[in-house]
């Protein structure tokens, strides 16, 4: 049958967004980025998946880990945020969205294996990035996640400076994604970038051959 390993391997392997995700805040907004590869074992089952999922107009989350778990958490929080924003009569805060994600991640931490980074803009605190790994919630100037993130910790530690503007942040995200995608077998495809500020939410795709290259490519 499909799930018992007698068919092709990719039918019985769990589908993971082995991934690279990143979010960074600047004065006035946030930039989120992700790759687009979804793998089941050694097979790439989707090479163009957008892992930046909207939770509300100006709040997005970046998905990594088990694709099913991550998508389900995002859908549940999307619903809960809709209800919450109707109750309070205004746009929800980024911290509220991150708390809802954290609540699910923490309560079901034994069953789930997904990590979501929540980032967005709200009137009260401007651009914010929250990491929710394993059920904690912490606000950070930037966050990286997914299997590809290990390879770029050194790069982001070295390159991040306080006070970068929107264009610097977008370039930082694109460079980081490109480096991670070229080293991590589970990351690849195209790069999706979302920029959120007070005035707009802009989604962009950068195709593989338009990504920055480095000395050995």
């Amino acid at each position, binding site marked *: 049958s499909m799930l018992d390993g007698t068919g092709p391997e990719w039918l019985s392997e769990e589908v993971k967004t082995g991934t690279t995700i990143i979010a960074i805040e600047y004065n006035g907004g946030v930039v989120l980025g992700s790759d687009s590869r979804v793998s089941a074992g050694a097979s790439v089952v989707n090479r163009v998946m957008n892992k930046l999922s909207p939770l509300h107009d100006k709040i997005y989350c970046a998905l990594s880990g088990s694709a099913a778990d991550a998508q389900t958490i995002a859908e549940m929080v999307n619903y809960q945020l809709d209800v919450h924003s109707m109750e309070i009569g205004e746009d929800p805060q980024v911290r509220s969205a991150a708390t809802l994600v954290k609540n699910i991640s923490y309560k079901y931490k034994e069953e789930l294996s997904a990590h979501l980074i929540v980032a967005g803009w709200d009137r009260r605190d401007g651009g914010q990035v929250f990491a929710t790994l394993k059920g904690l919630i912490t606000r950070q100037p930037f966050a990286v996640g997914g299997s590809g993130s290990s*390879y*770029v910790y*050194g*790069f982001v*530690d070295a390159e991040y*400076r306080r006070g970068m503007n929107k264009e610097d942040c977008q370039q930082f995200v694109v460079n980081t994604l490109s480096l991670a995608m070229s080293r991590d077998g589970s990351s690849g495809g195209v790069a999706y970038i979302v920029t959120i500020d007070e005035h707009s939410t802009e989604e962009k795709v950068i195709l593989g051959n338009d990504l920055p290259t480095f000395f050995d490519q």
Partner: protein
Amino acid sequence: MEKHYTGSQVKGVSTGTTILAAVFDGGVVIGSDSRASIGGEYVSSKTINKVIQVHDQIFCCMAGSLADAQAVTKAAKFHLSFHSIQMETPPLVISAASVLKDLCYKNKDELQAGFITAGWDRKKGPQVYVVALGGMLVSQPVTIGGSGSTYIYGYVDAKYKPNMSREECLQFATNALALAMGRDNVSGGIAHLVVITEKGVEHVVVPGDKLPKFHDE
């Protein structure tokens, strides 16, 4: 690159480690951290030197099981000095790397160690070779190894340039080691660097408090 032992699959004392080597204009820099640990839980030495001299202008760095690495380098030193007496000329860097490769390949079932060899010879000038865990030998302009290397792939890909000056290369190597030591809990201590050029060999030691600091430190 060789496998990364972040889960103490190495029995006994391991150099959970960060090692690197890079070619610059006129020479090579080879360097490492200085921590030896047992299973990632106990630091058995804070100041071990993992940069071993195998001949006048050829050094190598080891990662993996400390016992295996010491046994292999001792054998390699012997083979090389015998070889250089027979040939009546200083050995080539590739000879040193090949000696290590032979030992690693022929004993691949028992050994758990990988090597970076760097040096200068009259035939090809400055060179860097890497011998991976199973015994593959490859020449590269820049290479990193050990458990801490995962975190600096992105940094090295982005920042290494061929034909750097000696100072630029030293700064690049020191930064890379500092970044890896900052993220890998089994790498740390001081940075040992050796600069090899036609003229000779220079040891540079950077104590922990003089290592470069990054935005969050």
